[in-house]
């Protein structure tokens, strides 16, 4: 069954650059057969259009490199994209189009010019369900995004405990073979834990076909719009399952993702799980599906550490350990799976420490372990950790009930997390808990002699290593 008829897209990397034409199936691939296996149906043509747009955005985001990777000031790109769709009039509607552009620009912090070209191919793909209706209408499933990361696995485990017997459709869009294996292993653990729970994974492959005319192209490393494709696939699954929600298991800290340094842009300030991004995606899928479908973040009021601790309370330690967070994964440096020093690894380690889960031999550089004693950690390895700790220091006044730091206010208002002073309160509580978690870890670090704990020392305190200098 052919679910995604070939289509074309055209893009220009910059306002004065020549355009390129790419063809689905020849230059890139989205594994739409996964929908057929689960639903025995095609997405409607509008939903199919949505997936085409999402895949096109992903492809262009991946192929157009930002000018200077290391320099955040050169982050912005002016991208032009044209996509072949079946219903261009629908996508050009002011509301839908405005939402789409706002969503893309919010997510990637680029400028997007998108146009649509009528796909005149015949015949149109077979639409609708072969047996008349969604096979899931009798008992609506829990549809969620599942990346294979710590939050999504822990969150899924918690939500399954809260919804006993309810079928689950976790949606994964994978671009690395290990990712598929990782989520399948997690579902195995969950079936075991919940006694044969009904899990119908929908796992979609998204890939560039590099041995085509794309040979020699270098890809952009940030790839922020991967989240757009991921969310679009989840949204289409919700539409086809007959449910009104797509759940996203991300902690409030990860979702809001306050920039580590004030004014920071770029991949380290990703908005891939941001509530406003999901608000815009909800509007898009609701328009395309013709009914209300919303993304939900059930763990918005929790830190990552709290989510993991809750999962541990349900006996899901092994599940947590089986996950991967590292942005460099797969590290390809046996026996280590993860680097231990990138932002994702640091936030994971922080959460695992809060939940009292020990991990040994997993990280190439162990910020929370014996590497300190053997002197294997160099200052370079602390770059991101230092940024996390600087954020902790800069948020300090929240602890004493003082005024809200301007950087926190700016982010919450500018990214539409809040619209009034009062609505900031729950988020300030969340940040305070997170702050306290870090202080506790640093206090333990001081006791155990982790040199980085010096970074959080109060002014005038004796730093680790100073006693030795003094005695010498």
């Amino acid at each position: 069954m052919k679910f995604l008829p070939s289509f074309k897209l055209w893009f220009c990397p910059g306002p004065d650059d020549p355009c390129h034409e790419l063809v689905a199936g020849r230059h890139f691939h989205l594994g739409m057969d996964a929908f057929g296996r689960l639903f025995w149906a095609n997405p409607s043509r509008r939903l199919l259009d949505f997936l085409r747009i999402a895949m096109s955005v992903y492809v262009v985001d991946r192929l157009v490199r930002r000018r200077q990777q290391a320099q955040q000031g050169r982050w912005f790109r002016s991208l032009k994209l044209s996509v072949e769709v079946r219903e261009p009039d629908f996508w050009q509607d002011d509301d839908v189009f405005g939402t789409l552009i706002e969503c893309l620009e919010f997510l990637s912090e680029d400028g997007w010019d998108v146009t649509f070209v009528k796909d005149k191919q015949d015949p149109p793909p077979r639409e609708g369900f072969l047996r008349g209706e969604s096979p899931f209408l009798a008992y609506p499933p829990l549809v969620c995004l599942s990346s294979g990361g710590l939050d999504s696995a822990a969150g899924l485990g918690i939500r399954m405990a809260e919804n006993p017997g309810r079928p689950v459709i976790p949606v994964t869009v994978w671009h690395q073979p290990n990712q598929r294996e990782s989520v399948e292993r997690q579902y195995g653990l969950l079936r075991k834990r919940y006694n044969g729970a009904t899990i119908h994974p929908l796992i979609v492959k998204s890939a560039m076909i590099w041995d085509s005319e794309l040979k020699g192209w270098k890809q952009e490393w940030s790839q922020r719009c991967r989240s757009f494709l991921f969310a679009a696939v989840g949204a289409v699954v919700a539409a086809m399952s007959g449910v009104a929600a797509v759940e996203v298991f991300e902690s409030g800290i990860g979702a809001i993702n306050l920039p580590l340094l004030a004014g920071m842009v770029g991949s380290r300030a990703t908005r891939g799980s941001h509530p406003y991004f999901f608000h815009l995606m909800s509007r898009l899928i609701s328009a395309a599906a013709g009914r209300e479908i919303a993304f939900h973040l059930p763990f918005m009021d929790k830190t990552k550490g709290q989510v993991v601790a809750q999962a541990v309370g349900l006996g899901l330690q092994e599940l947590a350990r089986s996950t991967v967070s590292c942005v460099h994964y797969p590290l390809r440096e046996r026996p280590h799976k993860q680097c231990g020093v990138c932002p994702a690894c640091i936030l994971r380690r922080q959460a695992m420490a809060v939940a009292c889960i020990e991990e040994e031999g997993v990280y190439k550089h162990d910020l929370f372990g014996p590497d300190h004693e053997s002197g294997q950690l160099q200052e370079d390895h602390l770059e991101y950790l230092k940024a996390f700790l600087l954020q902790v220091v800069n948020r300090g006044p929240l602890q004493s009930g003082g005024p809200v730091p301007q950087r926190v206010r700016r982010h919450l208002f500018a990214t539409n997390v809040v619209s009034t002073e009062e609505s900031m309160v729950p988020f300030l509580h969340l940040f305070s808990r997170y702050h306290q978690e870090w202080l506790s870890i640093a206090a333990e670090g001081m006791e155990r002699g982790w040199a980085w704990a010096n970074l959080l020392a109060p002014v005038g305190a004796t730093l680790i290593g100073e006693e030795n200098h003094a005695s010498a």
Partner: protein
Amino acid sequence: MAENESLNPDDPYGRRWDIVYRAIRKGEPPEKVVLRVRRAMYQGLRKTLKQCAEHGVTLQMLLDSRSAPQVLRRLVRKTQGHEYVQLFADVAAASSVCDTEGLLQAFVGAIWESVGDRIAHKVVRSDGPMSLNGMRDYLGHTVEQIQPDVDRIARNLASNPSWKPTLPRGKKGEEAETTAEILSTSLLGN
């Protein structure tokens, strides 16, 4: 068209802030560091306003759009994602109750906050003499010292958005000294 000013001392177009970073790292006296911050702030703003005009965006347009995030978003885009303009848009979102002068105060103050974060991140080391808390106190001191300039810039721009931010003349030769410093800094880094 010239490349946009940057708030990042590591960026070739944020070199004026690199000078401040180097001064702090070298341990220059605080009053000298504050002077460098003031110079960089005035010059960076002046250059930014000039660049924005080249992009077809004036401060007046930004001020007129302060309550219209969609319009501000278009202006940010028109300036090719200029960091200062993005910062202005963020500040505007969080300053809806301020008058124009208050908004500009918050914006100009946020410039040094943004740069200060990056400098703190570069200066502090786990084996160094100063913790992040110590650095925060140090930067807090500079914030107090530059506040009269922040207020002055905000006041002048609020009354005349075409005003070109200029450091009040102090000792003779002050501006020339700054220019010489910038020129002597390799754009390729050390």
